[in-house]
Structures are given as C-alpha cells and as structure tokens.
C-alpha cells in the first residue's frame, strides 16, 4: 500500500526517540551559547572605554557650552567610574579640562578630547559623596 501525505518525521520513530532528544538538547544549548556570546560581545562594545570616553567628553563639552559663570554641574558618571577603576585609572584623572578641551580617560592607552566654544574657566573633579558623581564647576569668563 502506498503511503500518502507527509512522511513521518524522525521524532515519531520509536526506536530513535532517546537519541533525538539528546540531539535537540545539544542543539538548544549551542543556540543559547551562541546568543549569550553575541549578547556579551554587544554589551562589551556598547560599554567599552572608547565609546564611553567619546560620549562623556561630548556630553561634558556641551554642559560647559550651555553653562554660565558660578554654575556647578553634577554629572552621574557611575559606569565610567566603574570602568576606570577596573582599568586602574584614578578617579581624579578621568576628566581633565585643559584650555577649552575636555579630555576623558577611561583606559590605560585610550583617551578622547572634545573642544567647547564657551570661553569660561571650568574645572572638573570627582564628588566626595555620592562617589558616582563628577562635578564640573564654572568659575567665570576668561
């Protein structure tokens, strides 16, 4: 008698059921591992020193550009401070303001600088409490 319709899949074969289950489990585990590795890669890329340095340098430059004398700006830099600590960079060396340049350093070999147009005397130093903040102080016009 000729069989009609779909062929029975391998899942329905009685004598091979156990083998197929193990295969499926390995397949799922491999897939999960693959997704985890890719997610870790994406997370590391998004939170890497190079990306954070750039975003913080530009952010601080804009804060200074929009600020006026005698302003004190508190910026939450928790992720940058954690990364700097991990890379052995001192809290005081993370943000430096030299002339009209903001320099952010979060890695041993990396740093990023961005200039601002507001001709003010600005200084940056880490806050004592809470420790996750950085303070940008605008003393006056140059």
């Amino acid at each position, binding site marked *: 008698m000729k069989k009609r319709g779909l062929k029975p899949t391998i899942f329905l074969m009685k004598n091979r059921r156990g083998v197929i289950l193990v295969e499926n489990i390995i397949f799922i585990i491999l897939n999960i591992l*693959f997704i985890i590795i890719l997610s870790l890669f994406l997370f590391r*890329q998004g939170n890497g020193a190079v990306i954070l340095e750039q975003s913080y340098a530009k952010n601080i430059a804009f804060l200074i550009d929009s600020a006026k004398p005698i302003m004190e700006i508190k910026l939450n830099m928790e992720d940058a401070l954690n990364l700097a600590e991990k890379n052995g960079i001192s809290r005081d060396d993370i943000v430096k303001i030299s002339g009209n340049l903001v320099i952010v350093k979060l890695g041993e070999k990396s740093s990023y600088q961005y200039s601002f*147009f507001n001709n003010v005397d600005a200084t940056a130093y880490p806050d004592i409490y809470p420790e996750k903040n950085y303070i940008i102080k605008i003393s006056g016009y140059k």
Partner: protein
Amino acid sequence: MIKMKMLDNKKEKNQRFLHCNFFPKNRRGDKILSIYWFAVLVIVAGGIFAMVYIFYGAPYDVRETEANLFINKVADCVSYAGRLNTNLISGGKFNQTFSSNFLGECHFIFGSSEWEEEQYYTEINFYKPEDSNNPVFSINAGNNKWGRYCPIQEKKEEEKLTKCVRKSFYSLDELNNQYIIKILAVVAKTKKNAKM
C-alpha cells in the same frame, strides 16, 4: 534484504557526503555540526559583527546639537529678554566695535589646540521689518570657509562636512525700534563627528 542493505549503504554514503566529518567517532556530533549549520552560524555571527562594527565604528554626530547650543548663545548675546544688547546698538546706531570684538563681547573661543583651524562660523544679520532682504547691519565671526558649504548641502558627502542651523527672531532696541535678527551657526568638526 539485499535491496534494503544496498539502500542503507546509499543513505550512509549520502550522509557522509552531506555532513562535515568533524568528529569521526561521534556520529551524534557529526549530525549536529553539519556544514549547513556551521554556515548559518558563520553568516549570522558575521552579520552581527559587521552591524556592530558599522554602528560603533562611526563617531556620534552631535554637531546639530552643538550648532543649536551655539545659536542660542549667539542669540542671548545680541538680544536678551527681547531687547537688543546696548553694547551692540545705542541711540538707533549699530556699534562697529561690537562686531569687530564679537568673540570677546559674547565670550566665545573658536580656536583650540585640537584643530589647526577654527571649526565654527556664525553670521548675524539685522533687518528692518519693512525690508527683510537687505540687512541694516551684519556680524560675521569664525572661519568663513565653513559657511560656504551650507548652500551646497544636497549631496550626502557634503552634508557630512558641516552642520548649519538657522534661526530668526524679533527684538527691540532701547528706542523700541523693531528688528528681525537672522542667525546662521555652522559647526565643522568633521573628523570627530562623521566617518568620511
């Protein structure tokens, strides 16, 4: 029986041909890591790596925000709370000294050790409400080279060179004369904001 055995041998041969033999002794692994499965893994991983590289490889383009900040600062300098700066205009007459010392008057610094040339340009034109085509007074500051790129920003490559922002508003002088002020602010900083 012989026919069945022959068929089995043929099936086995096909399987050997179709599957990459990474683990010759482990047939289960052999089945899972077939060449197709491996190819799919490589394609997906390659695609994601390429997307991440393209996304994070290009710098954040913040020039439009910077140009907006710049234009707001310029506007605050020439006119504050709806009144023109008295250093700029007094007795209905514009002060040329303000124009020549614009950077000092408005507390701007366009040069930096980061760049060889100035990366900003601004153009401020003052018009009477009855004639909005011919300015009664103009101020230019910064690198004029960047201002020339604004009208030709039709192609994508040229759009990357500079960011130009325009704004206009009304203001009064001390004699209550009305003026239309049109400001153009240009930020270059191409290397730091665009992948060329």
